[in-house]
């Protein structure tokens, strides 16, 4: 398939493909000494989130991201990458730990959305996501977020308030799944392909809208490019003070208002 002809929905399918590169492979390819850490210290360990410490070119970093499985059995265990409040709270715990030890944070986002279940709601899914958004906006260490597959809804954003947000070339990042969007807007989930186009969810479109900072090409060059981009970016970010980082991140999200024509009220 040539790139020009690829539709947004083709990318949705690629982003969801069972053989898509997952977080464990990124960890294997890019980091050394990975040590997985578990649990939210409140209720349980959510296997849909992988979190831990590793070194990147000799620097300790904290890695957090959604995990999808290859087999049905794995997918059930990881809940298809749909995170529960416990997973977001584990992520938050590890981020605050990273801040304490001055470690940069790298997140890998790949989720069809936060888990819509009885227990997830009872245990405060809204609260867990909201707290992550708030905490990430003020952490005093570098944060880089990479959308590797599906970045769907608040469940993706809860790992996405970062100094740099990158997307893999065929990843998608959206307010809701195209199916969910089509069923809300047109009351017809089968119009997902059409929804994928009007929603503007591809890496290229979102870069143009300045909602993300970079697009990582896929294929053989993907790992080396990501590696050198991480080296270069972390070097830049680590030169800034904690307060400078937090301020810049705050302003980055404060600025997102969609007022392109420069016309303002008040």
């Amino acid at each position, binding site marked *: 398939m040539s790139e020009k002809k690829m539709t947004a929905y083709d990318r949705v399918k690629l982003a969801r493909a069972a053989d898509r590169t997952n977080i464990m492979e990124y960890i294997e390819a890019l980091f050394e000494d990975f040590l997985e850490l578990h649990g939210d210290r409140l209720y349980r360990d959510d296997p849909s989130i992988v979190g831990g410490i590793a070194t990147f070119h000799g620097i300790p970093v904290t890695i957090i991201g959604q995990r999808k499985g290859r087999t049905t059995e794995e997918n059930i265990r990881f809940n298809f990458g749909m995170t529960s409040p416990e997973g977001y709270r584990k992520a938050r715990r590890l981020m605050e730990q990273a801040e304490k030890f001055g470690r940069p944070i790298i997140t890998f986002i790949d989720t069809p959305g936060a888990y819509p279940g009885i227990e*997830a709601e009872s245990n405060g899914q809204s609260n867990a996501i909201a707290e992550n958004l708030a905490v990430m906006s003020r952490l005093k260490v570098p944060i880089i977020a990479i959308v590797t597959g599906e970045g769907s809804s608040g469940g993706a954003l809860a790992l996405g308030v970062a100094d740099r947000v990158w997307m893999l070339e065929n990843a998608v990042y959206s307010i809701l799944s195209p199916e969910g969007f089509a069923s809300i807007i047109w009351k017809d989930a089968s119009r997902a392909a059409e929804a994928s186009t009007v929603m503007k969810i591809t890496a290229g479109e979102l870069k143009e809208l300045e909602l993300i900072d970079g697009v990582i090409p896929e294929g053989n060059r993907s790992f080396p490019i990501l590696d050198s981009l991480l080296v270069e970016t972390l070097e830049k970010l680590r030169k800034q003070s904690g307060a400078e980082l937090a301020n810049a991140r705050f302003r980055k999200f404060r600025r997102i208002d969609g007022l392109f024509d420069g016309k303002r009220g008040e």
Partner: protein
Amino acid sequence: MNIDDIFRQRRKRWDILLKQRTAAQEEQTECPSCHAVVETSKLREKRWVCPHCGFYLSMDPVSRIRFVCDEGSFRELFGNLPQQNPIKFPQYEEKLATMREKTGGNDAFLAGEARIRGIRVAIGVMDSRFLMGSMGTVVGEKIARLTEYAGKRKLPLIIFSASGGARMQEGLFSLMQMAKTAAMVEQFKEKGGLFISYLTNPTTGGVSASYASLGDIIIAEPDALICFAGPRVIEQTIGQKLPKEFQHAEFLLEHGMIDMVVERKRMRSTLHKILKLHASV
């Protein structure tokens, strides 16, 4: 005056009286819960609580402000932010124009400064009639500016939420308003500001999962639906019917997610009490 004239005059008066009564009766509202038809003026007087079944009808921002704030104290802010269509969604401008016409607001959020029993506050109210109170860039920007306004003037911040979540028609821009509003209230709170988040029916999705869950104090109205994923989505996922009380205000109180459930008639006195307890000495 002969008897015929007296009757003629009386009939005239009866006609006028009847006309007046029909005019008064014309404005009626049906309760969405028990379907009783109630005179709108009576409902308004009862703070939009159904006198028959006690159901809380949704309250437009102007009525909300009237019941909460001191008479004549409200001054609107940021009411002239321009509308926009950041992802060029088809027919969105037309839809916005219709909504503006219908509600009289520039989007689904009314912001301003007011007084509650003499105490100055920054206050915002979502309008659930405007595209289900969804949060897009204008709502996000108004919340951000209101929070900055409160921070600069050291005013308590009160936001009444009533929203179906993030606004679909603005795509990822809407999702980013979650990060933006959460960051804004976090910074405001870090600097010592008091944020009272008031959740009304319904507060869901991208609104409940951002600033609205970050209040120093979180209040909900009785029976209000408050959730991340809506009941229908959950029923589809798990393939079974949900218990009736699930995701309603009292359920959230029981699960430790909110501080209190407050009846509408105690809304103003409760807010005043909280404000008084935080007044600088």
